[in-house]
């Protein structure tokens, strides 16, 4: 197991507010897989990534029953040790590729500075040249053919897709075991989107690098991810392999989510309304107690005011008092 998180709670504590933005969420990842973390906007996907990499500000408090990274408990380590482990093995790319590059430095310089010193073989005098070839190799690896032009440019001179490729290049330079992609294709054209996702898939296969794909784009999840975890308002809903979830979800939310996309819902009659849940996601200040889906759930009953325990059944993990598709 690469990553094993149990009952992670992230609390936002300010003078006027004390809420759990992530409430007892669990996630576990196999080595070498593409794992999708899916949820609506504000469901705490990005928050999870930031809790994982330790880049949350002081306002947030992180608690967990288990926080294992390759068998090591990260919560027991000091912040400095944690940062070392994380920066060694985990890399991250963000949803605004242009903004996550330093605007005043050339792309080449920025890639050079993240190349670890151990990658250099030559002496001090040949280092400059060596750096340049390494940068070019990296850029070529992520599919940028005009690497000379690219490394001499500033971030604002490149397109979003190119910037994301540069970010990926910088992420894979240290050969990380896990790449967290936080909505990497948000607001991108579909052709660029496919390029980026294909690139991630290729890197996953060829370099044995696991990818945690944080997204709300179900179609790309179904196409590229092996496993997925579904979040609703900071609670984990269901997780398991994508194919099985699609075929036989146990949680009503999972079913509705897939049904809301016509591509996966073949039974839908032409020109009929798409299936949705009533209401909208509650804001952080007005979270319902118990199962947070409760007020919107078609199957909700009295017991749903108590947070359901997660149940493991046929390789899937779900948290619901009244699951569906259980009969056979």
């Amino acid at each position: 197991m690469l990553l094993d998180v149990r009952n992670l709670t992230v609390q936002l504590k300010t003078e006027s507010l004390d809420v759990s933005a992530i409430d007892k969420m669990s996630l576990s990842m196999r080595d070498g897989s593409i794992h999708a973390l899916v949820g609506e906007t504000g469901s705490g996907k990005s928050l999870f990534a930031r809790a994982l990499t330790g880049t949350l500000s002081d306002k947030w408090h992180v608690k967990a029953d288990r926080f294992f990274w390759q068998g090591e408990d990260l919560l027991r380590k000091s912040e400095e040790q944690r940062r070392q482990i994380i920066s060694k093995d985990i890399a991250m790319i963000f949803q605004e590729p242009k903004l996550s590059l330093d605007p005043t430095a050339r792309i080449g310089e920025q890639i050079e500075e993240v190349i670890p010193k151990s990658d250099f073989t030559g002496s001090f005098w040949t280092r400059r040249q060596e750096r340049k070839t390494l940068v070019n190799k990296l850029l070529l690896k992520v599919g940028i053919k005009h690497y000379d032009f690219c490394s001499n440019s500033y971030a604002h001179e490149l397109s979003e897709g190119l910037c994301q490729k540069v970010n990926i290049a910088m992420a894979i330079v240290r050969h990380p075991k896990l790449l967290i992609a936080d909505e990497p294709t948000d607001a991108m054209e579909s052709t660029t989107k496919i390029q980026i996702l294909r690139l991630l898939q290729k890197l996953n296969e060829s370099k044995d690098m696991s990818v945690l794909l944080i997204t709300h784009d179900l179609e790309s999840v179904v196409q590229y991810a092996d496993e997925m975890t579904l979040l609703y308002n900071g609670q984990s809903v269901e997780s398991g392999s994508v194919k099985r979830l699609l075929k036989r979800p146990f949680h009503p939310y999972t079913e509705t989510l897939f049904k809301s996309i016509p591509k996966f819902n073949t039974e839908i009659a032409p020109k009929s309304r798409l299936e949705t849940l009533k209401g909208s996601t509650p804001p952080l200040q007005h979270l319902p107690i118990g199962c947070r889906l409760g007020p919107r759930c078609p199957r909700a009953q009295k017991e749903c005011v108590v947070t359901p325990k997660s149940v493991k059944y046929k390789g899937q993990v779900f948290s619901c008092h009244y699951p569906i598709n259980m009969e056979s």
Partner: protein
Amino acid sequence: MFVYLIRRLNLLITTLFLISLFSFSLGHFFPGDPVINFSGQQSLDYDEYEALSQTLGMNQSYFEQYIIYLRRILDGDLGLSFSTQTPLIDDVIRVMPASIELSFYALLLTLVLGLPLGLWAGIKQHKLVDKIIFTLATMANSVPIFWSGLIFILIFSLNNQIFPMSGRLNLLYEVPSQTGFLLMDIFLADMPNKLAVYQDALTHLVLPTLTLAILPTTLLIGMMRSSVVNVMRSPYIKAALTKGLSTRELISRHVFRNAIVPIIPQFSLLFNILMTSTMITEIIFSWPGIGHWLIEAIYQRDYPAIQATLLLVASIMIMITVVLDILHMLVNPLARQTLHAK
């Protein structure tokens, strides 16, 4: 880039034109005869007055008078001083270096103190260090410098005799003036006891430099701090944090440059404050610079001198602003981007 330069140059020329127009109008607005105000000559007999009036074009239109005035300025003829009846341009050249020297050291001190302190405070935002630095800076910013200058004199010169009270150099030493910049002059001078002279000149410099540096330093700390806070919040710093850079690398490679670039145009504000503070400081410490000289001129109603200094100081300020703007454009790729977009 070329278009941008032209545009800045246009701004420079327009502003200089307006300043010269204002300066020209002062010659007419000041009390007394415009001929005397423009030329500065006070003891004229009738024929001389007529001749001068002719050369200044007083019987012609204002427009032609202005052209003649411009031509005189460009030739370096700023008129005579009322009080000494010597050409003003010589006086300015005599007193300017002392001011430039003082301002330069103060500016150096400002940069050396202000940038790191502002950086430190910005990185440790809301921590104790930040609070201490920011509180001190705000307090120092609120103290008028004529008061702090006098307090410095009281503590360091009168009560403790560590530093001299006024002037640039002890009267014992006679340094021939060649460049006007004292430290340079000492270097060029042929003297046996150079080290002692240097020491004396430097001790004279300490208090005025400190006094003068207070305001710009606090200002720079404030600017740098807020800029650093902004940069620290930006996504690329968060991204850089996940890339395994150490805090020191992060600050030296990303934070410092990105924080300093946007505040370069605001540096002209520093120069502005420096300029006005110089005048006060020079009076307090009897520093023979342009501020001291100007205030003397104001006391003596030396209209040509006031007019000339106004013109010069304003022109220098405008040029500094324009140069900083162009510099900003050169070092900031983001500013160049907006330039292309226009």
